[in-house]
Each structure stands twice: as structure tokens, then as C-alpha cells.
């Protein structure tokens, strides 16, 4: 019962914060709202018993990605004056179309699957699956991280060379 109330409360916080981003002009404020969404999602994971996934969500999403965004916004210094108008006809039409399509899709998925609520997360089994069946994917992740580090270094180096 208390878990139900907590789940609905956290979901409401996440939904309100994500709708707040649509109407927000300032990137810093929308980064804070994005942090709220990620934090509420991590709390929902922990509520479901997935403590490892919740901790990883806290560390990576709300810990590193939002901080990277805020630092980049500060270095760009563009936190003012975008012209943005949500209430013209084209934006409302796009919003209603996408919302109707995805609601129909979600109803289809809900009718298709039923959920059995019991905690299934086991760290030992998880590591066994990750390092046996998905070993190639794991190695590809390490390659992807290396490539992203090299790309970020090259872009930053070109910027420094232009400044000299």
C-alpha cells in the first residue's frame, strides 16, 4: 500500500518535471528539471528492488550527464533569450498527433503483456549473463568509450589550436 502511494507520487513528480521542460526557455532550469526526472526514476528503481540499477542511474545520469550539460552551458554562456512559442498551431498539432499515436501503442503493449511483481534481480546471475552471453557487447562498450574519449580530445585540441 505504501509502496503504491510512493510509486504514484514519484511518477507524478517525474511527469510534472518532464512537462515543465517543454514550456521552459532557460536551459539551466530545464537541466534542473531533467535532474528531477532522473532522480525520481532512480527512486522508482530502488522502490522496485533494483538497487544496483538505481545506484547506476544516480551516478551516471544525474551525477555525470547533467553536470556535463551544466558545465557546457556555462562555457557556452548562452543561457538567455531564445525565441520559443509553444502555442502556435503547428506545435499543438505535432503534440496531439504524437500523443495519440503513442497512447494507442501503449494500450496495445498493456493488453499484450501482464506483469508478475516479484523481485528477480540477482547480482550473481546478472554478472553471469553479462560475461557469458553478452561478452561481445561488453567489449564493444569499452571500444565505444575509448572512441568517445579520443573524439572529445580531438575536438578540444582543435579548439585550443585555434585559440593560439
Amino acid at each position: 500500500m505504501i509502496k503504491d502511494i510512493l510509486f504514484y507520487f514519484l511518477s507524478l513528480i517525474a511527469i510534472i518535471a518532464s512537462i515543465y521542460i517543454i514550456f521552459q526557455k532557460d536551459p539551466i532550469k530545464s537541466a534542473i528539471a531533467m535532474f528531477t526526472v532522473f532522480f525520481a526514476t532512480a527512486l522508482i528503481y530502488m522502490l522496485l528492488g533494483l538497487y544496483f540499477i538505481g545506484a547506476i542511474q544516480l551516478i551516471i545520469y544525474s551525477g555525470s550527464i547533467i553536470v556535463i550539460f551544466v558545465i557546457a552551458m556555462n562555457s557556452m554562456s548562452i543561457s538567455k533569450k531564445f525565441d520559443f512559442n509553444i502555442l502556435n498551431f503547428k506545435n499543438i498539432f505535432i503534440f496531439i498527433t504524437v500523443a495519440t499515436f503513442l497512447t494507442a501503442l501503449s494500450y496495445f503493449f498493456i493488453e499484450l503483456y501482464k506483469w508478475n511483481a516479484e523481485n528477480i534481480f540477482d547480482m550473481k546471475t546478472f554478472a553471469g549473463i553479462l560475461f557469458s552471453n553478452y561478452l561481445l557487447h561488453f567489449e564493444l562498450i569499452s571500444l565505444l568509450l575509448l572512441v568517445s574519449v579520443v573524439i572529445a580530445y580531438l575536438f578540444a585540441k582543435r579548439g585550443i589550436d585555434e585559440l593560439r
Partner: protein
Amino acid sequence: MNSDNLLILSFILFISAISIFLTHKNLLMILMSLELGLNSANIALINFSFIKQSLEPMVWVFILFAIAACEAVIGLSILIMILRNFKTLKVDEIKDLKEI
């Protein structure tokens, strides 16, 4: 709290991510909406893990975390290069391809 609520939360977050992607004109907000979409995909994958009583969707959640981090890093470095070359981040004003 059952399957319906978790999946509905995922779809509402994805709807707002797509709305941010289609309505905003700042490239930084578009990149942030991609992060929000990946987050809603994580929620849906965890729901499927509960449905199938299996841990394999959790592995894909783990992979999506790394992909989201790499995408943020590469996207932000590209945005800084665009800002340095075009002096703006609005989508309407970035039209040339040959100046880079």
C-alpha cells in the same frame, strides 16, 4: 503498482521527450531530449524484465547507460564545435556544410 503503471510512465516520458525534440529550436535542448528518451527506454526495458522473469533486459539497461554517457560527451563536443564555427545554436540558422 503493476505493469500498466510502469509502462504508462515510460510512454508519458517518451511523449514529452519527442515533444521537446520537435518543438524546441535550441540544439542543446534537443540533445537533452535524447537523454530523456533513453531514460524512458530504460524504464520500459525494466518492465519487460519483470514481465519475462528474466535478467537479459537488465543487461540492455546496463548497455544503454554507457551509450547515453558516450552520446552526451560526443554530442556536447560537436555542439561546442558548431558554436565556435557558426556563433549560434539555433537549428534554423545552421545551413552551411562546407565551412567546417
